[in-house]
């Protein structure tokens, strides 16, 4: 598949660059230039925190200082985002599968329902979870009424009977807020699969599990890949969930960057930390693409 696409592109190389130019220009202006200025600040010192003057001194210590101070938060951000992404796959894949192959005439309605939460702002949806998970909320009531607190604590769904203000709530919030970004790409890649392939597998006496493993799963991997990026990256950078649903030990990297900028007036450290964060994510994405194989991506 990839091969055919490439041959067609080669024919009109000049045209291709022409088509690319708006995108390239956009990236230059709104990505590369700001990145350059961010990098410059990350390597600068601010002699007087109150004044807007920077000395560009190749101050690499900004980077090592940031890692020293915020190592915990960095690890925590990627851990939470990683767990949330895995949960999103576990929830999103079966749902997308159902939507693509089993939903029948309900498909469009169900797809619409996946999108419905987006009619409300991200912030409001997250705050709503405070009410649901809070001390007087329905979640705690159900668990306490059924005397399940011991079990939910054991399963680490609750901490000492509380849902709110726990790491679990933060990860749950991340999963909830980003799961749609997992469902949709997987759905799209599943929906493209030619159903005749499955019929062919059956004709050849393959068992359904094998057909899934050898046909559906590989063909849907690009969707999983795209979904992972769309989920993991924003989840790692998010700090609203951590702030609203977490406690004093659940803060993620986003809020630390914000504090450096706005509370400590330390632009260089904030810029350096942002850079480190982006570098780790970029490296992670490249590695992930390598492992999953780029050929599927071209499909």
């Amino acid at each position, binding site marked *: 598949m990839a091969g055919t696409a490439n041959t067609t592109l080669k024919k009109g190389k000049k045209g291709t660059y022409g088509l690319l130019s708006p995108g390239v220009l956009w990236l230059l202006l709104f990505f590369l230039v700001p990145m350059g200025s961010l990098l410059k600040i990350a390597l600068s010192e601010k002699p007087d925190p109150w004044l*807007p*003057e920077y000395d560009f001194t190749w101050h690499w210590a900004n980077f090592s200082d940031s890692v020293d101070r915020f190592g915990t938060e960095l690890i925590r951000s990627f851990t939470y985002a990683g767990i949330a992404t895995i949960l999103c796959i576990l929830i999103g894949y079966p749902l997308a599968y159902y939507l693509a192959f089993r939903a029948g005439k309900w498909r469009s309605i169900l797809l619409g329902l996946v999108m419905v939460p987006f009619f409300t702002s991200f912030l409001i949806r997250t705050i709503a979870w405070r009410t649901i998970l809070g001390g*007087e909320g329905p979640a705690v009531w159900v668990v306490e009424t059924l005397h399940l607190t011991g079990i939910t604590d054991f399963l680490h769904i609750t901490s000492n009977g509380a849902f709110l203000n726990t790491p679990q709530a933060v990860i749950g919030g991340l999963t909830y807020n980003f799961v749609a970004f997992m469902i949709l790409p997987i759905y799209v890649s599943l929906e493209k699969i030619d159903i005749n392939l499955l019929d062919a597998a059956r004709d050849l006496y393959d068992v359904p599990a094998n057909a899934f493993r050898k046909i559906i799963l590989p063909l849907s991997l690009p969707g999983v890949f795209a979904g992972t990026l769309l989920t993991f990256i924003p989840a790692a950078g998010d700090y609203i969930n951590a702030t609203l649903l977490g406690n004093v030990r659940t803060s993620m990297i986003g809020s630390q960057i914000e504090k450096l900028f706005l509370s400590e007036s330390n632009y260089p450290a904030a810029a350096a930390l942002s850079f480190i964060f982006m570098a780790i994510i970029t490296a992670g994405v490249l590695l992930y693409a390598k492992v999953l194989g780029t050929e599927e991506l071209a499909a």
Partner: protein
Amino acid sequence: MARRTSPRRPAAAGALPSDPELANAVSITRELTRRRFLARSGMAAGAALFAPSILAACTTPGSNRFTVSNWVSYIDEDDSGNPEGKGTTLYEFQKQTGIDVNYLTDFNDNDAYFNKSFSPLLGRGKTINADVVMPTNWMAARLIDLGWVEELDLGNIPNHANLLDAYTNLDWDPGAKHFMPWQAGIGGIAYNPELTGGEITSANDLFDKKLKGKVTMLTEMRDTVGVVMMGQGSDAAKADPDDINKALDEIEKAVDDGQILKFTGNEYLQGLEDGSIAACVAWSGDIYSLDPELGIEFVVPDEGGTQWFDTMVIPKGATRKSQGEEWMNFVYDPENAARITEWVGYISPVKGVKEVLEAAGGDSAELAENPLVFVDDETQKRLQVFGPLQQKDEIAIQTRFNGITG
């Protein structure tokens, strides 16, 4: 003020609409306050999180109109929630003076405004897009020290005489020549007697093991540290870095022990309502806005609480300075100040407001008796304004505090 008005964090939590029946049950004053609170928290949270002010502050070309930049929901509004509706202070000001006011509510965080607007613009000798801004006392002191604030022409402000004496002799601006206070408030302790199992009288009660995991403190360093410092017998007004670090030691230990659940903006209100918080460092006005049936108490600890106030200042180079002075003069008229107090429920720095409210009778007179709005002498003695900090101390302390609050 940073605090209640505007959750520097997603404070909106406390803002979730409460049961409408409950809302109806409370008095008219309470309803007003409640509505103010709802509006403020929702809007401020949005503003704080998505920071539209970064754009407003940096890209808006100089407006041709007299511009006031205030905290969200920090002035009286009409019944439909319009701050410029008929009969409001802004409406009356425009009618009486003929000055067209561009009223903004983009001042949602002292540090954020400083780093987005004051420092990058005033620090480069440019002007900002506001003729009057409302920083909290310590930020006003910093701005005056940096020379980024215009000196007021007191000749244009005859009502400056109505400023309470407590404000006219501060170290950082003797005679109050660069600022006029807007509203003031108290940092103390709020608690739920059902959960604490009794009265709380001391800041040290926050560290009582009985309350483990049910205590919160504010992300506003000066209030949290100030209350704890006074509990340790230190003077918040002196702001000695050693004393502050001693207080931070205690706070840090409490975090490590799991005593403190989290540090919050005003979303602690929801925690108080739903029972996940037993006691917390809190702002008086917030508690005043809660439904009294919840039974949440607010105390100024025996050892003392913090007093803060927001100021009106005219940033350097403001094009409409004299109109700014006219505005200050207007809101220092006791009648106008009383109208604002009645709506916002904070402590007014203007002489004569209490008398105006008493004379008005009804709910207004009741407000005049409210000890959180008109603080009695005995309580006032226990309040301290957090003292000034040297820049390097302030950065070091704020950095350490940020490390503790997570």
